[in-house]
């Protein structure tokens, strides 16, 4: 733990225990989503599925990056990850992104993907609101992740008929344009 790193957050008026719980739960959401997206990605096959494979892979890798970026901040503030991976899974801030019963049902796949991204957006927005103007380091980290989650939602939402999102796929194979500085 960083003694002063935590102290300044406490002095700002933030409930550090609540903040840590949010960070751990969102880290769990990222890690479990990385796992579940791995299964979704390999099942995105055929004429329709192939079109989603690249963005699902980008979202998958970036969710893992978000987990990696969150962990140092959790420990800096005096928190920790559960010793047991099963406990960590069950702490997730977002529901499991399970493979639909019919993996060939692309709309069902998209429903899972969009729901996961929307849950993440709300989670990081809540952390930003809690830390804005107080805990600058957590705020900037959460904002970086929020930017990427919003892009993920945008990519998938175009496929469910919500119109153009104004966002494009990652260029040049680079992931996490916002969060990479925390890796």
């Amino acid at each position, binding site marked *: 733990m960083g003694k002063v790193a935590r102290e300044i957050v406490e002095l700002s008026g933030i409930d550090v225990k609540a903040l840590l*719980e*949010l960070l751990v*739960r969102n880290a769990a959401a990222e890690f479990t989503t990385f796992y579940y997206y791995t299964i979704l990605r390999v099942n995105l096959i055929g004429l329709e599925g192939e079109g989603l494979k690249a963005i699902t892979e980008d979202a998958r890798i970036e969710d893992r990056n978000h987990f990696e970026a969150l962990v140092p901040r959790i420990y800096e503030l005096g928190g920790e990850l559960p010793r047991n991976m099963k406990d960590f899974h069950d702490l997730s*801030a977002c529901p499991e992104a399970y493979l639909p019963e019919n993996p060939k049902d692309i709309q069902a796949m998209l429903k899972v993907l969009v729901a996961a991204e929307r849950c993440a*957006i*709300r989670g990081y*927005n809540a952390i930003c*609101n809690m830390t804005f103007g107080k805990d600058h380091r957590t705020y900037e980290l959460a904002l970086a992740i929020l930017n990427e989650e919003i892009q993920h939602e945008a990519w998938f939402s175009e496929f469910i008929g919500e119109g153009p999102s104004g966002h494009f796929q990652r260029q040049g194979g680079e992931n996490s344009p916002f969060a990479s500085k925390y890796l």
Partner: protein
Amino acid sequence: MYRTFTKEELAEFNGKNGKKAYVAYKGKVYDVTGSFHWKDGKHWVVHEAGKDLTMEMKDAPHFDDLLEPFEVVGILKND
């Protein structure tokens, strides 16, 4: 006919130890038991079941339409 809850009665439905999780919003009491986002009577760590969340909803990162799928089980009595 809906049941009328006082704030004290609503507080009993806090979602803890197997109890049902009810929340009030704009005078209506919703049953959020079983919702992933209300596990153990807590929502995003800082919001608790058994309470009137009308004021807290103003700062929520979502609209109140997310409450629509939940059953209305009563009316919250004004103080």
